Structure formats: C-alpha cells, structure tokens
C-alpha cells in the first residue's frame, strides 16, 4: 500500500450540544477518526431550519467538556452563508478535511450541508443518516447520558424534561403513535448531552427553571457547569 497517499481524516464536528450531534461524533471517533474541532452555529432566530437552538448561549461550556477547540459563528439570516463561513474558519484554523453531522432524516440539512461542503472540498459523514429513529433513540439512551430540555409535541410528557433519559423513557416514546419522529428529528423535543465517552468532563445543569406554555409546550433552562468524571 502506498502509505504516503493515505490522508488522515481531520473532522470538524457540527456541534449543538444535543444528543444527535454528540452521538454522531462519538461514532466517528470510535471508527478511528480524529475529531479536530467542534463547529457551532448560533442561530439569531429561534426558528432556524438548519441549526439547533436551546442552550447555544452556553455553547462554550458545552464544548469545553470535550476538551476540543470550538469554532463558533453566529448564523445570520443566510444560514448557508454562515455555515460556509464557519467551515472555512475550521479549515483555516484546524485544517479539517471532513465534516460530521448528526442529521438523521432531514434532507434540508443534508443537502445544504453537502452543497457547502462540495464548494469547500470537504467530505461529509452523517453516520446517523437514514437509520431507524427508534433504534437511534434506544442506542443513544444506552450509550450516553442526556436530558430533554424542550418537549413541544403531543406524546412527550412534561415529567421526562430534565431527567436523565432512560431506556424506559425511550420505550414509552417509541410506543407513541402520534410521534412520527421518534428521535425528535422534526424538533418535537430538544436534548442536551451531559456525558458520553468523548466527554472529558461531565455537564451538570444547575439553577434549573421549567415553564409550560401550553399542554404540549414545555421548556427547561439552567446553567451548565462542568464536573470531573470519576
């Protein structure tokens, strides 16, 4: 084999702090790849179609938990332009040659990220793409510790908000016929990953506050702090 031709992947992981982006980069890490940096886009609007919103104001703390450099860009109205800016920055600062995404079923996400990556000559890895959402939710539950921080759909009880998500909770979600996206890919709930094999420190949420705007709209806020892993 011509070893000189082998180029190691240096991956920039699109990172929101939610369960899917964290699970995806853990999977690539487990496949022997190097995660060179985290890349976060902080949406200006809470209605972002492309990027995760909750807890992004604390993204520096969430990223610090991994001990990885963070490339942070505010996502302006033109989200694609912002994404391109963030990826360019990651190429310049951390010499990435590939991107990892936690996309599962959103063509909107996949195609747009792919087109920007094509322009920049980056490969895209989406290890969760087209996997069964039930399976993903169950595997994530077993693989890492995460909580739900928003629940905005019928079928997700307020009681599950803020508690460490367990296989039983996943089982109940999977039974819910009203939920078409069992891993919440459609924004039915948003999550926060507290611990995974790639976390150097665990995240703990303090000063939590919850609020309900209606029967099916529940939100949790709080302060993320880092604690040592034992």
């Amino acid at each position, binding site marked *: 084999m011509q070893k000189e031709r082998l180029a190691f992947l240096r991956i920039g992981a699109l990172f929101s702090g939610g369960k899917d982006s964290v699970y995806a980069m853990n999977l690539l890490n487990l496949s022997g790849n190097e995660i060179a940096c985290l890349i976060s886009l902080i949406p200006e609007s809470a209605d972002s179609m492309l990027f995760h919103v909750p807890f992004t104001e604390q993204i520096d703390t969430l990223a610090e938990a991994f001990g990885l450099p963070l490339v942070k860009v505010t996502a302006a109205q033109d989200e694609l332009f912002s994404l391109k800016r963030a990826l360019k920055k990651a190429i310049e600062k951390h010499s990435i040659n590939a991107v990892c995404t936690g996309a599962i079923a959103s063509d909107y996400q996949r*195609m747009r990220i792919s*087109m920007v990556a*094509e322009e920049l000559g980056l490969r895209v890895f989406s290890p969760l*793409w087209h*996997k*069964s959402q039930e*399976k993903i939710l169950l595997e994530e539950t077993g693989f890492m510790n995460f909580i739900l921080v928003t629940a905005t759909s019928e079928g997700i009880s307020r009681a599950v908000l803020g508690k460490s998500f367990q296989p039983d909770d996943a089982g109940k979600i999977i039974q819910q016929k009203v939920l078409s996206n069992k891993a919440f890919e459609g924004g039915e709930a948003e999550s926060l990953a507290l611990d995974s094999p790639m976390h150097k420190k665990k995240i703990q949420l303090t000063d939590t506050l919850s609020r309900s705007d209606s029967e099916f709209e529940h939100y949790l806020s709080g302060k993320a702090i880092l604690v040592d892993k034992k």
Partner: protein
Amino acid sequence: MILKNCRFVITQDSSRKILENVDLHIEDGKIKSISKPGKKKPGDYIDCSDKIILPGLTNAHTHIAMTLFRGFEDGLELNDWLGKINPIEEKLTPKLISLSAELGIMEMLSKGVASFVDMCYPFKETYLVSGKYGIRSVLGPGFSDKSFKEAITFAKSLLKLKSAFFRPSLSHQSIYTCSEKTLLMARDFARKHNIKLNIHAAETRKEVLECYKKNRMFVIEYLDSLGLLDNSILAHCGWITKGEARIIAEKSAVVVHNPVSNMKLATGAFFPYTELSLQNVPIALGTDSAASNNSLGMFDEMKAMCLLNKNNSWDASLAKAQDALDSATIHGASATGFANGSIELGKEADLAAISAKSLELMPLRKDSLLGNLVYSFNSYVDFTMIAGKIVFDKAMLPEWLKRADKISRELNQFIEKNR
C-alpha cells in the same frame, strides 16, 4: 422445446412462486406452459433435473462499448477518472468499439443477462454486435447539441425495425452536456414515439450543487420542471431527497441503482432505497461500465445492492435477496419494456439456467435458494436462453474464451499505445 424436470423454477410471478420438478414448455420463443413432468417423448428437450431456472437478468444501466477500459484506472474519483478516460475514448475507432461491445456482451450472456440498457456512443456497432449475439438491448444514443440529429436518425431507424430485440431510447450524460433547447426536443421526440429517456441523474454532489446554483432546484426537480421525467430511466440517483423520490413516483420513472460503480468511484452517494421503495418506484439494477465496476455480472451487483443498503441503514431486513432479484428481473423489465423478467405464460422465454450442483450453492434447499444465488453465486451460468433460443451454453465457453482472448489482445494494443 421443453426444459424437462427443472429442479427449481424461480418464476418471479406476482406471488414470487418457486416451483420444483416441473417441465417448462417453450414455443415460438415464449413460455407456453408449465406442467408436472410428463413422459419423455422424442423431441427437443433439455434435462434440467439438476438446474435452477430463473428469468434472464437485466443490466439496466451500462456503457458496453467501454468494456475495453476494464481495469484501466483504480483509485480515482469520478471527475478525475473521466479526465483520464475521455481523451482516449475520443480516439476509438468503430472497430474497437465493436470489439469492446462484443467482449461485454459475451460476459453478460455468460452470466445470465438477457437484456441491457446501454448509454452508447457511436451506437451502430453495439446494435450490430447485440444482433449477432441475440441479446435484447435498449440502445440510447448519447446526444449532445451537436449529435442530436444523428441520435434521432438512429432512434428512428430502430423504431422502424419494430424488433422484439431492440428498443431505442435517447440518453443524456448529464443535464450539462447539452442545452435546454436540445433537452426539450429530446423530450418531445420521446413523447411522440413513446420511447424512454435514459438519464444520468444526481450521480454526484457536484452535479447537485451546480444544478442548485443555476436553477435553485435539485436535479430531479429540475428535470421535472422540463417535463423530462415521464417514463424515463434515471441512473444512479445517489443524491436525491425524499421530495424528489415522490416526484419520481408520480412520473412513473424507473430508477437504476448502481451500487458497485458508485462505491468504486467514491461518489459519497446515499441511495434512497427506503424512500423509493415506500413510493413503489421500481428500482432496477445496473453495473455501469466495466471501467467503473469492473464486472458486468449481475450476481455481484445484486449482492452489492443488498450489502450496501443493509449496512447504510443498520437494518439487515432491508434489501433482501428477493428484493435484489426483483431489481435484476421484473424491475429491469420495467426499465426496458421487454416482456421478460418473469417466467409466466405468454412471457418471452428469456431464461438463465444454473447448476444446482454448483459448489457455492450448497447446501441447497428451497428456502436457501435465493439467498445462495444472490450472496454466493458468481460463476458462469449453464446456459442463457433468449426468445427460446440458447445464446450461451457452457459448452461454448472454450470457443468464446478463445475469441475473447483475441479481442483482448487487440484492445490492449490500443490501450498501451494511447494511455
């Protein structure tokens, strides 16, 4: 002719029946009847007591005249690869094209392929060689602005033949190889004469990006906006969305999956197997050219289709052996329009026969038959029959290998001189 006492007949009928120990009666090139074994009478019959009979396979997307480029390059991505091949391709003579097509057709017939859909350039040679060997083909002159008239003339001449062995189509390499005006003329011609458009669609991420930048639409959306999807054959489709899968279904287009070629050229594609299946889009199967595969055998392709889609989705229940066989037979027939792809009364007697005593198929039972064929079989078939006529028999192999060797020498001389 009677195929006597067939050990297994994989009918691929609507209930996917597998029959055991039956006689297949063939008359005037068609399946006349299927019956319990009768007494042997003098006449034209073949003892099939140790044979598996299945419908002749369809290679629904290939470029047969590129067979001379088999093994030409390894390790290049699509555009770099084309950059190496295209300049040499331009130097090909009609004779070399003819030899190249002959090599490919011999290989396909020896592996049970009865029909193929070709995206071809100088098309006359492939037509002549197909005729010589008795294989069915959908020949799609690849057209550009410059060659459109010539392609139309060829298509018209095939239409005039009203042959059961040839169908014309119009092929375009990609949405950028000709102007919208030419594409629309091709559409109108195809509609008028009820022939298929054979299109390379959404093969690469680059193509998607370029299309989106220019038209603010993805590739399938763009083709649909021009009315090019109706009744078309869409090859590759590695980069399409759920919405595009719905459009394909609405327009009754057939998609051709090319798993090996896409993987070899590292297009990064994610074939939307589930979306297309949920929309009941026929998914046919193609090898693409020997240059990017490197085989033209459909058993390898069926296996790759199953493995790739199972692994991509982390779902072993997806793309089973039966699905792959459907792709290589009945869905292939949806692409070509030939009345083959299943063994039913009145259908064309296009069949492949495989020895039930093949080592790689054992232990063989009815319940393991499809799995063993798709995941394990990769040898020559015992015979391939088209329209009731045996066009390849294993006994012909020494003679065919001699001919193939002669062709290879000639093709290699050209490659060595021009690479």
